[in-house]
């Protein structure tokens, strides 16, 4: 069942409901404990009896091929943070409410907390650490510096990834359009004015570099 769902999710038919079903099928503890990280493999034999997904997978992250041992129920955000050392992707809610964990999968924004790592095999994942190229900041990152963007900045990596995704969709957005395209991210400091300034500046920089 899980494999079928993973395949379906790779075709783009991924839903929150299927995500939860996938997690339950994989035997994660359904409790008040919230998001969980499994690292030791102590219970691995028990789990492997429940499903037939290969744990050792190759992921394409920020242009690199990374081999990782991933339990079936692990989310991409957890794999990035706890297996690959990519802690730039933040967890603010782990329930698709805040967008702090936003990453790009094949250039499209996704909440890293709500997609299973196994479902991104063969797809190109970009996290905040992958934006800088040869020491040169991505136009969106440069725009943040130019505009002095963000306050506590815990939401910043997610917003930044959403802006990168936004620019591939609409390279020349109005302020209003940018607000709509970034509405999946929450900033509790309420720095939305500077975030929109940054988005507009990013679009400008992006066009001039292209």
């Amino acid at each position: 069942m899980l494999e079928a769902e993973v395949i379906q999710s790779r075709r783009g038919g991924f839903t929150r409901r299927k995500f939860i079903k996938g997690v339950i099928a994989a035997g994660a503890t359904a409790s008040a404990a919230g998001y969980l990280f499994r690292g030791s493999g102590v219970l691995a034999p028990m789990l492997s009896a429940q499903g037939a997904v290969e744990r050792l997978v190759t992921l394409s992250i920020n242009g690199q091929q990374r081999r990782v041992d991933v339990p079936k129920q692990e989310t991409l955000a957890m794999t990035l943070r706890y297996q690959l050392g990519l802690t730039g992707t933040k967890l603010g809610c782990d329930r698709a409410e805040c967008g702090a964990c936003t990453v790009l999968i094949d250039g499209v924004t996704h909440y890293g907390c709500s997609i299973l790592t196994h479902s991104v095999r063969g797809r190109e994942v970009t996290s905040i650490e992958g934006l800088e190229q040869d020491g040169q900041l991505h136009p969106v990152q440069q725009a943040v510096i130019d505009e002095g963007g963000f306050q506590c900045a815990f939401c910043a990596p997610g917003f930044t990834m959403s802006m990168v995704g936004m620019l591939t969709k609409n390279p020349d957005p109005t302020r209003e359009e940018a607000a709509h395209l970034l509405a999946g991210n929450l900033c509790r400091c309420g720095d939305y004015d500077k975030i929109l300034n940054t988005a507009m500046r990013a679009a400008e920089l992006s066009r001039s570099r292209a």
Partner: protein
Amino acid sequence: MAENVIGTDISPPDLRAKITGRARYAEDFRAEGMVFAKLLLSPMPHARVRSVDTSAAEAMEGVLGILRASEMPVQAEGLGEGALTDEPLYEGEPILAVAAVDETIAAAAVEAIRVEFEQLPFVLDPLESLREGGPDARLDGNVGGRGEALTIKWPDSVFDEAGPDRLPMGEPAAEWAIGDVDAAFAEAEVIVEETIVHQSVTHHPMEPRSCMAYWQNGKLFLHGSTQSTERSRGSVARMAGVEADDVVFIGEYCGGGFGSKISGTPNMAIPAVMSRKIGRPVMLRITRYEENYIGRARAGFQGWAKIGLRSDGRMTALDLYLVQDGGPYGRASDFSTAGTVATAIYQPENMRFRGVPVYTNTPPRSAQRAPGGAQIVAMLEPLVDKAARELGVDRLEVRKINAPGHDGWLGENKAPFTSAYVREALDLGGELFNWEEKKQLSGQRNGSKVTGVGMGLSPFTAGSAGRDGLLVIRPDGKLHVHQGIGNLGTHSIADTARPAADVLDLSWDDVVIVWGDTSKHLPFSTVQAGSQTTHAHTRANHAAATAMVGLLQELAAQELGGSPSDYRVADGRVFRASNPAAGMDFAQAARRAMALGGKFSGEQFPEDLNDATKAAVAGLAGEGLIAAARDNYARAGAVFTWVATFAQVELDVETGEVEIVDLASTADCGTVMHPRSLAAQTNGGVFQGIGMAKSQRWVFDPKWGIPFTKRFYTARPPGILDVPRSPRFAAVNQPDPHTPVGAKGIGEPPVGAGEAAYACAVADAMGGLCLCRTPLTSDMILAELEGRPRPYGLLDTHV
């Protein structure tokens, strides 16, 4: 000459790390052999743990240890809170913790633990607890006193007399008065009175309070999320039962606090003590769900206010009664602060304040951006509008009539202010918003939408004094500014260093900020709360930089002849004023200082430094030219900032939805340090206030005492589409004369200003009808517009 950096926009020096993923927040640190802890939370709002059976959990492979409340150095005692407890006072309070090699096992072990609870009476509504025979949240009482719980019960007659829609007002716990309020009401031209409800609100910073701890050589290393780095060390030490010298606190970045992470938070004790117990580094990740419980909240009020205006618009009488919903611990001082802050808005000629802080079995309260201030501004401003309408006075005008001037005063003791450019801020706001024209739009209908305009004026404390500055010029010629304050997103970690650059006439590029780790020798600092930081640490760094200039002059005179006053400091050099070629650069000065020792390199330092700073200087001694100084600048009066926010809204009378069309805010916060950041702080605070006024509900199941509104989607803070795309801001930018840099804080006052402006604009769109409650949700507005009976009582909380 280096360019003055105060008043310019800079990119904060830590921004590149924040935007490349390199910035490490508490949960981003790893330690060799790190394991995970999970919490067992109370399933009941008030209970006693009868027995705990951990045998099944302990038998699980991978489980490393279980921590009980009795093992904690700090117990829940008196009004104080422990990190773990055997008498939970709210649903979700941590009972015990389990450590395991991974988090899934820890969580499975938590599920395998059997706890037998004895249910105890609980209370959610403060008024219920004030009734004779009503339940008490705590076994030792129902009302917060000084250091102990009190029991206050009001006779039934008090409730009967008030009826269902008016606040019952029995014996208060606190009371004060200015003048004779009854006599003033007798002579007032217009009197309005209302019963008002303000909800409690969870802080919910984006970063939950996850933390990680390990021990090395008897020292505790704790990675936590805090607003105040240096000041967290002591509180963590106390929680772990060790001396402050034995704690290294690392808090480089803080993903928001808003008052909920002022210094060490209780949950930090759990990985600290667990790690010592099991001999492994322990990470305690806090989920959003857990953050709702242990993450602190703003205190709510059920209140009553009566306002009397003279015919000229002057407020001659203000009578205020606040019943506080204060959670189960401590004594949230919001209610008393609210009374004091009210005087700073209106300077009422006569006033009476009464309040009673009641305990409830709901999550613990702490300061939240303008604690008490934001609530009272949002509660009173719509009422003042109502009185002004009845009197026929313009709403901006009535605020100007009553606002404090420089001879203004604060609170029952009528303390003076250091400065108060409040009317200037109101005038500036009126212009920025275009009040005269916009108020003509009031009530204008376009299809189903009705326009409303409103404003709010919000004061709050804005600075403390007596902290220390610590500067080091290193042999590379860079000026290192050691900052004990936290890095919570206000940019004050960098901005308060600006006076050091300006006093030394040094390029900002040559300034290095040292922060975020108490092993880096950080000076005694203010807690980053109460908007103290900008004022306090521009002073402290100004003092240290002034001392540094003196040391450079003395050093130059000693090395190059003449007297210290012959020398000037500019552009990274100390040189003879008469012959700029004769001098030395900062790198040379640092090397000379290291060779000379004594007062130049930190072997000696001023005696009046605070102890933490003395230790920091001793730790740095010999590493360069070191100047440390205490802020001894004279200051007389209360340091306050005022923010005025103006809002234009469109209320859809068919749906009850409100759209904010325009927002403009102004501030009297002294000298502007960082224009862009100041505007952002203000706008962000205004948005937080709007969230409280509009959408962030606080609802509990009355039968079981468990919260319904515990996540972002059930108590939603404003998103990017909920606020105008281009809010405007301007500052009066008049220096406060009681501080060398002229700066006052900005963190708190915008919240009440935004909340009040929204509430007043919505009331205006409803023809001046004040619903006197937050949050004011669409369904409530719609019920009112359609004349349907209210589905809630005027005094009901948890709506």
